[in-house]
């Protein structure tokens, strides 16, 4: 569906506003559609915070529950997307923090032992899924980026341009710097890819 198909493409912000208004009005179909279309963005916002997959599922469900609980207090429907993103990010921080604490408690280290602790979103199993050389090269270089850039690009890959402002605020980035940061992270990735012989053959 798109403008060329004769229908108007709703922005993510419009969709979140629609979800809020549909929910308040007790209209279920549009609300269901919007939950389905915004869930991938929330998922990646949460997963970008190193929340393990099973916990991330609970976090995303919790964000939607919180959204309907607070449906009466979100004043401006156009603020609904920002509300969702900020809530997702905070809940993800909290879940990641609890998870780290739990891990620490359940696996005490003996003296002098250094445990190589994989990040929750670290590869390993993921790479198994990457059958194409092009994807493997891309993933290798994404992981070489600073963490902040990885998070930024992952979220941007599931967001439309009009929502960048909301994303900026949710990720604690200045509104004015979000475009610049996105550009810088993409430039860094391009530079890395340009130096990677594997990409030259595919990019």
């Amino acid at each position, binding site marked *: 569906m798109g403008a060329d198909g004769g229908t108007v493409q709703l922005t993510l912000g419009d969709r979140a506003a629609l979800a809020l208004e549909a929910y308040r009005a007790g209209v279920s179909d549009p609300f269901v559609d919007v939950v389905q279309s915004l*869930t991938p963005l929330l998922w990646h916002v949460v997963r970008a915070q190193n929340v393990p997959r099973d916990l991330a*599922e609970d976090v995303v469900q919790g964000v*939607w*529950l919180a959204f309907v609980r607070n449906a009466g207090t979100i004043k401006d429907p156009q603020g609904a997307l920002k509300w969702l993103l900020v809530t997702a990010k905070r809940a993800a921080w909290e879940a990641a923090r609890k998870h780290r604490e739990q891990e620490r408690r359940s696996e005490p280290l003996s003296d002098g032992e250094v445990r190589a602790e994989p990040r929750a979103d670290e590869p390993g199993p993921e790479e198994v899924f990457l059958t194409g050389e092009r994807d493997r090269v891309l*993933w290798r270089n994404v992981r070489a980026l600073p963490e902040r850039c990885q998070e930024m690009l992952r979220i941007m*890959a599931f967001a*439309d341009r009009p929502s960048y402002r909301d994303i900026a605020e949710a990720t604690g980035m200045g509104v004015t710097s979000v475009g610049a940061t996105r550009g810088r992270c*993409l430039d860094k990735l391009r530079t890395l890819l340009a130096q990677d012989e594997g990409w030259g053959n595919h990019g």
Partner: protein
Amino acid sequence: MAEHFDSSEPLLSDLNALFRTIDPVPPELASMSLFAITVEQLRADMLELEHVETPELVARSHEAEEREVVRTGTITFACEPVTVMINLSESPTGGMCVDGWVAPAAPYRVELYQPGSRLAVDSDEDGAFVLFDVPEGPTCLALCRTDGEGPTVCTPVIEL
């Protein structure tokens, strides 16, 4: 479903495909979220029944770590003045058969909620009902008398 990335930037489109592959959104996540909302609304609007008697293999709550699977058996729920007993068995066609009985005896409207679906059936005059071919998964029943008398009640979430 519409794509939600800035398609004017080819690298973002590559990244979108990459993350879809390495970290796909769990396919049931949106419907589970909607189900959680439904259950919360049911709880807000209705009296929640409590487990009175359960077979050994029964889910006590919807908390992921406590989730167990009901195979077959009879579960009793109650909340004064309503008692609901449901018997679970495997349908010949593969799903679950949920037959139950509500007291005090009266015709009830019985609704069975699962992620992404809702089944409804009316009980007979004695409060007996049966739902065939119920898919496995988290499930919540809501019951109200068709004459509008008495409280509307719902069960805790059980995992069929």
